[in-house]
């Protein structure tokens, strides 16, 4: 009997929040898969063949058919393995889930990254402000729900793993206060629930090596000034 593991492959890197999104989705669905850790300085032929447009991770390969772009992958996973739904079934709520996931990609990820990994101080400051503004929208959107998905983890929560696990690392690397319980009490509470969720916990990368790689990057950036 062919193991289902052979049919499903995920190309990724440990430090990527986008890869982590896919891992969470797969774990929520209980899908077994083969994981391939890529070396981005020496990309595999499989990666280059599977994502010729961007040559990036994550790439999800199902029955030899590749899909890049984390949110496209997560929707595909949700549509292929229908139990434990990740997106709501009602069209308006689906649109809302897609909206906030896109918001995280467009407004939070870039700004939070540049708030730390930019040499120019003014640009860093602008990005800190942008990050605060974006996080405030999410704080308001969460209201009194346990998760963005309601009682259970959904698309927006998965997209927001960047906020729960990566932003705290960034702020420690740079000695910055971006995301605190004082500034964003609801969002902070959400982040603790989220990273301690049994499925999410098992999908997160080990903190130390990932933190180490970002710290190294930060130090070489600031040293070059």
């Amino acid at each position, binding site marked *: 009997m062919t193991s289902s593991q052979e049919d499903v492959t995920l190309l990724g890197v440990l430090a990527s929040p986008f890869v982590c999104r896919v891992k969470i989705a797969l774990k929520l669905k209980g899908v077994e898969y083969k994981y391939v850790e890529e070396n981005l300085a020496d990309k595999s032929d499989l990666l280059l063949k599977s994502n010729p447009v961007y040559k990036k991770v994550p790439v999800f390969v199902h029955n030899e*058919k590749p899909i890049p772009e984390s949110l496209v992958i997560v929707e*595909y996973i949700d549509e292929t393995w229908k139990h434990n739904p990740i997106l709501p079934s009602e069209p308006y709520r*689906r*649109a809302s889930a897609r909206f906030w996931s896109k918001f995280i990609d467009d407004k939070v990820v870039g700004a939070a990254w540049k708030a730390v990994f930019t040499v120019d101080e003014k640009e860093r400051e602008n990005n800190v402000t942008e990050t605060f503004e974006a996080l405030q*929208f999410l704080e308001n959107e969460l209201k009194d729900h346990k998760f963005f998905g309601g009682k259970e983890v959904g698309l927006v929560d998965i997209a927001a793993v960047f906020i729960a696990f990566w932003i705290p690392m960034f702020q420690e690397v740079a000695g910055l206060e971006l995301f605190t319980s004082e500034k964003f009490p609801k969002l902070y509470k959400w982040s603790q629930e989220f990273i301690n969720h049994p499925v999410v916990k098992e999908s997160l990368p080990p903190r130390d090596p990932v933190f180490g790689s970002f710290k190294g990057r930060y130090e070489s950036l600031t040293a070059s000034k």
Partner: protein
Amino acid sequence: MAEEVVLLDFWRSPFGMRVRIALAEKGIKYEYKEEDLRNKSPLLLQMNPVHKKIPVLIHKGKPICESLIVVQYIEEVWNDRNPLLPSDPYKRAQARFWADYVDKKIYDLGSKFRTSRGEEKKAAKKELIEALKLLEEQLGDKTYFGGNNLGFVDIALVPFYAWFKANDAFGPLNIERKCPKFVAWAKRCMQKESVSKSLPDQNKVYEFIVERRKKLGIE
């Protein structure tokens, strides 16, 4: 009922055009409200407080924002006719991937090409042509990206055609010569009423661009 569906839009917006095409493809009656983007209506600010942008679709009083998200919403609500996305999950993923590619590449590069000069302009031109060629490859021998019918990627991309003359005048971009398949595809789309009625006249867009360049002092 037309009152149930309202579209806040701006005639020149390629993102607004996407929604117009989707609504037309599904035969949905709606109220069109033209926004003055220098003086946004209280309704727009209330319905899209996060981005304050058009297009916004208001259905039974509830707003949906971001053009590709709106198109998917339209697809899912009016799911009994003219499907805009394939039913197969892998093909859907491909459609979403390429529509996202259009978002990341085409409109920004077009804008950059029009408003920059020198090396920056040259680089934008090169990238834009490469992106269109990649899309041509994706199209292959199909009538539309969606196959025999207009699909998600067609809707995402065809509004670019309204800016065709405007772009070409500030190059030259020579899209007709360099990407003949793309142009042939766009013209095929324009033969559909849902598209031709949703895109403004190329000359109108061209005239607007000329005016704006004068104001920006770009010769």
